[in-house]
């Protein structure tokens, strides 16, 4: 199954095993994964990508489970990627989000994949956006991404999802917590989950107060706040309606196209940076390795700027031609 063209055709053919293996190859950076993602690209662009973020224990997994169930009841297919943190010590991870998927066990049309962040700190793994492409090409109608539970800095999700929901559990700190950068800016929808608990109303009010102060321009999407009880499914249909109106807004205003263009520009830049720096590493090796260069700098034979110029010289020459 390591043969890329075959994997692509099996995936497009709807084989779950091929989709699973494609995501594994993407995660592991297995040889050929770039060709794989490249081949999938033309088949993408049909799914709605929804990101769910929020602090640990906010109820993300439980809410994702209920969202998936509701979409399935509408006859839609669902792909889910749930990211959990990896251990900074062993590199291992316990990926526990699957336990909450009680409403969808046994339903193969909900494709649930647990993913380790593999040391990445933005709330997603570097492989997440490529894995989303695999689910999209497979033909999933809705793709839900659940980030690592943290909640003050998980902004990678904005770059990957069309619609971002931020979960705010009741009594999760005063309004100063919400003033902190990150969370307030990234949400298209704010979800006060566990709305049956004491303090939910207060959290709702504080959130509304904060969002009114958001520096929005005319024509911007006005973030909505929805109350849910993910355990019982209360408010989930309303949340789905809000997701839909955000999706409609993206289409009607042309914002979707802008977002998409920005996203691809960012993706191309990231790839170029990584590939270019790999080329530079090769060139450093050709010149005897970093240790050698450093020694010469330490001995005052040369300096870092000159080294950088020298290493890049062949590249620059190529570009000038």
């Amino acid at each position: 199954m390591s043969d890329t063209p075959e994997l692509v055709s099996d995936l497009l053919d709807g084989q779950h095993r091929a989709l699973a293996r494609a995501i594994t190859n993407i995660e592991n950076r297995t040889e050929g994964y770039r060709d794989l993602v490249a081949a999938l690209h033309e088949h993408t662009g049909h799914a709605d990508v929804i990101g769910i973020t929020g602090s640990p224990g906010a109820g993300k997994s439980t809410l994702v489970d209920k969202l998936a169930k509701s979409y399935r009841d509408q006859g839609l297919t669902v792909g889910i990627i749930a990211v959990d943190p990896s251990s900074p010590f062993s590199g291992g991870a316990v990926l526990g989000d699957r336990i909450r998927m009680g409403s969808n066990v046994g339903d193969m049309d909900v494709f649930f994949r647990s993913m380790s962040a593999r040391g990445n700190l933005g709330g997603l793994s570097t492989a997440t956006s490529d894995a989303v492409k695999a689910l999209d090409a497979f033909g999933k109608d809705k793709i839900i991404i659940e980030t690592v539970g943290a909640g003050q800095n998980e902004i990678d999700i904005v770059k990957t999802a069309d619609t971002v929901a931020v979960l705010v559990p009741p009594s999760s700190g005063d309004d100063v917590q919400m003033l902190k950068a990150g969370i307030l800016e990234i949400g298209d929808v704010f979800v006060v989950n566990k709305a049956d608990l004491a303090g939910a109303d207060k959290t709702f009010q504080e959130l509304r107060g904060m969002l009114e102060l958001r520096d929005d321009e005319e024509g911007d999407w006005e973030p909505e706040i929805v109350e849910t009880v993910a355990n019982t499914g209360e408010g989930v249909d309303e949340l789905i309606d809000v997701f839909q109106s955000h999706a409609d807004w993206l289409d009607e205003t042309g914002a979707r196209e802008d977002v998409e263009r920005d996203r691809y520009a960012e993706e191309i830049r990231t790839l170029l940076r990584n590939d270019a720096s790999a080329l530079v590493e090769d060139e450093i090796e050709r010149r005897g390795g970093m240790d050698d260069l450093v020694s010469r700098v330490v001995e005052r034979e040369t300096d870092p700027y000159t080294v950088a110029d020298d290493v890049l010289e062949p590249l620059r020459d190529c570009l000038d031609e």
Partner: protein
Amino acid sequence: MSESSQRKIRCLVAKVGLDGHDRGAHVIARAFRDAGFEVIYSGLHQSPDDIVQAAVQEDVDVLGISILSGAHNTLVPKVVEGLKEYGAFEDTLILVGGIIPDDDRPELEDAGVDAIFGPGTPMEETIQFIRENTPER
């Protein structure tokens, strides 16, 4: 495997059937994590089909089934059948942990189980077995 590949061993630690004792599964999950594996825990009371769904979607290298109820002769072959149906049997290492009487071992091994680890097995032995026997992909 290419040099730049960043493969991690992925394991599904699965509780199947009606037994509700998962302390052992938790300890195993944690030890696997500390060994650098990526561990997906299924949660309690899963049916064989649920386990198959999880193993296929998560594309795990290792499926560790914990059974303390005595129903292993019924449940394990169903899981194996399901994996075969999705073409996932060949390259998945299947382990069984729990209380398995010696008389039942040959039957499970015939069904496709790669190893059985009873109570008291040192964690290091299980981890070593996984490192040495995880199928190449």
